[in-house]
């Protein structure tokens, strides 16, 4: 069988139903084989878009996302998506064409050392040197991408190898890699110690991260939190694992987290970090982070434990397996939950004194926070929301109130502007029955706007709600607050005309400029068939608050200035 056909067979054997990509010279054999493959190929308009679509697909569904690209520029266009998938631990397999074996190393046409270029941010990578490796590497790539701490795997296939004929036997035995054995169970002794520490904690807090989403452990987290009145906060990546409408929810923590979440971390005596990695956007000034707390750290990746913040009780394992054990051990101790009364009094006090706050817009002006609240209403809080990177992303995280996992899809680690639209494409392909809204920023949307063509031609009806403030808002905010308001290259001007642009692509374009019409317009956009771009003109110089200034301690976070207190 031709090796390119074995590639399709092995992808099918891995359960692949959809892939994203663009053909080119070096992956012609792959695309020829694709004609007869029985899974969907979404022809994107830029390889970066294909990469982010694969990520959106994986984040929405939990299944491995797959993207194809050709050699050289096709492959290098994937690099941002690969780095993004690495930092957010997204299970993805990227399959690139490479120049013919005899040309490798000669600077041949469209040759780029994509293996070398991506080495720092792949979970693993393969370059086939023998056609028989191709199906084998596919299975290994899927195994590595989807188990342990998920991540991107690159498979680079020289063109001559994918044309070669090979003997092909479908693989029957599971993949076994001698150097790759993730620990999943969690050491039961450590779990017991953790349960007993929790039983003695007076000011405990759960700090949950993207690992709980990736590990499909949302139910398990809710069970554990319900074992006692444990306060729960989460990172940007972990939103939805614990419901925002839940009793124990403190809101997101970190740079733009709630006052309550950050102060609770600061005053806690025991932090239970669950699938989270103490990123600098969470800790603020590291030396002053959570000065009173002992740390229980649960993560499937042992290298995360004590990387940034030392763990007193490390537990290496899959959160889905560890959390139920911790719940069982904790419940067996039958602790008196009244010990948490004064902690909750303190927390409720912070919540009352320092809620999320913004000055409402006057005279029909649309405040960006209001736009997110309206989006929640218009979608009944039950859409898959993707976002770009910047202010709108933070407001969505603060105000949408995610109640379910895999409903919030954004680029947290790498912070990739232009992520929103292509990831919405991927999410919609993965979950066609769900409403998928890309909450975009005007600085970001233009970066991958070509994927509107994908939405139209591939009939992927995503709704793009553009929070248009005419600025690269987050950069503007930093220039305002920390660089003496010297605005430098942050204005977006009046270009493009988004409604006309949407129409030029064959999508529906709409605009809203008044808060009174917003909900109605949003509902209309959601009810309109096919892809829609709704240009919402929001207050231009609104800032995201509260905020931990860079390099400051979490407890020194500043809140929105109030016109009238």
């Amino acid at each position: 069988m031709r090796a390119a056909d074995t590639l399709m067979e092995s992808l099918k054997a891995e359960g692949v139903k959809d892939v994203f990509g663009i053909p080119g010279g070096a992956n012609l054999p792959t695309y020829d084989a694709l004609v007869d493959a029985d899974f969907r190929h979404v022809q994107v308009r830029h390889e970066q878009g294909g990469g982010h679509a694969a990520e959106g697909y994986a984040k929405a569904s939990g299944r491995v996302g797959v993207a194809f690209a050709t050699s050289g520029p096709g492959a290098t266009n994937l690099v941002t998506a690969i780095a993004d998938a690495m930092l957010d631990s997204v299970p993805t397999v990227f399959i690139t064409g490479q120049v013919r074996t005899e040309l490798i190393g000669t600077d041949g046409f469209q040759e780029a050392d994509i293996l070398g270029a991506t080495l720092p941010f792949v979970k693993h990578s393969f370059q086939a040197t023998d056609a028989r490796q191709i199906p084998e590497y596919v299975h290994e790539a899927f195994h590595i991408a989807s188990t342990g701490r998920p991540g991107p795997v690159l498979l680079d296939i020289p063109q001559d190898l994918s044309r070669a004929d090979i003997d092909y036997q479908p693989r029957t035995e599971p993949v076994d890699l001698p150097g790759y054995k993730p620990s999943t169970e969690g050491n039961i002794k450590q779990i017991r110690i953790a349960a007993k520490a929790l039983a003695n904690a007076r000011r405990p807090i759960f700090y949950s991260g993207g690992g709980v989403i990736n590990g499909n452990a949302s139910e398990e987290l809710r069970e554990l939190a319900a074992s006692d009145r444990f306060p729960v906060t989460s990172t940007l990546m972990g939103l939805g694992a614990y419901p925002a409408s839940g009793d124990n929810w403190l809101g997101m923590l970190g740079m733009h987290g709630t006052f309550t979440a950050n102060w609770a971390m600061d005053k806690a005596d025991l932090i239970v970090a669950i699938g989270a990695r103490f990123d600098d956007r969470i800790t603020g000034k590291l030396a002053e982070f959570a000065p009173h707390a002992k740390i229980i750290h649960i993560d499937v990746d042992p290298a995360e434990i004590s990387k940034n913040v030392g763990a007193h009780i490390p537990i290496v394992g899959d959160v889905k397996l560890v959390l139920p054990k911790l719940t069982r051990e904790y419940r067996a101790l039958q602790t008196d939950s009244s010990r948490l009364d004064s902690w909750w009094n303190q927390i409720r006090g912070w919540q009352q004194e320092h809620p999320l706050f913004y000055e409402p817009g006057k005279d029909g002006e649309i405040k960006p926070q209001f736009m997110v609240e309206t989006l929640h209403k218009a979608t009944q809080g039950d859409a898959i929301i993707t976002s770009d990177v910047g202010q709108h992303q933070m407001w969505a995280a603060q105000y949408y109130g995610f109640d379910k996992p895999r409903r919030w899809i954004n680029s947290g680690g790498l912070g990739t502007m232009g992520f929103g639209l292509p990831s919405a494409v991927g999410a919609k392909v993965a979950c066609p029955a769900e409403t998928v809204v890309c909450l975009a920023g005007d600085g970001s949307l233009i970066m991958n706007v070509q994927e509107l063509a994908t939405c139209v031609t591939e009939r992927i009806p995503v709704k793009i709600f553009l929070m248009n403030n005419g600025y690269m808002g987050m950069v503007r905010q930093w220039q305002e607050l920390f660089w003496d308001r010297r605005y430098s290259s942050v204005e977006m001007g009046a270009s493009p005309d988004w409604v006309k642009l949407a129409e030029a692509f064959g999508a529906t374009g709409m605009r809203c400029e008044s808060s009174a019409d917003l909900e109605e317009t949003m509902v209309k956009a959601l009810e309109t068939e096919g892809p829609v771009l709704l240009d919402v003109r929001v207050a231009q110089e609104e800032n995201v608050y509260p905020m931990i200034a860079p390099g400051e301690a979490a407890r020194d976070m500043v809140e929105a200035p109030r016109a009238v207190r």
Partner: protein
Amino acid sequence: MEAGTPQVVKLEDLHLPGQLTGRKHILSIQVENKPGVLARVAGLFSRRGFNIDTLAVGPTDDPSISRITLTLDGAVHPIDQVTKQLHKLINVLKIRDMEPDETVAREMALFKVSSAVENRAEIIQFAEIFRAKIVDVARRTMTIEVTGSADKIEAFERMIRPHGLVEMVRTGEIAIARGAE
């Protein structure tokens, strides 16, 4: 009560283990003998800001496995974090942080020394004391092979340098555990 789990865990009794050991570490790393493995290991060190003091790579008795021996300073780097990051590389099979007392470590160095007729005898004498071998003699230089611990090689260097060290090359340490293991 189960062995190893205390009845009560008081938060004030929980402490962090020290991160820095303050001594030199020799890591003996078994890796799959596949293309690009050394680049992955080296790339990891540079990306994470870990400084390698010495590095030696070679085959083992099993042709599918190579061994990378590297030394690094435990006063600067949290060795635990280094080994955990290394373990994340799929091609890394086994890492051993060699215990100094239970390890035989050796390095080889070649010294090219300028040797005028009048100081030749002294250089040869040094070589004998250090059980070094003279492996090449030319009209103006001598090349000496020294094998031993890193300390011994450094001591030899100190002795020979005043005589005019032209060039020196070291292999980096390799190590093996003492005894039956």
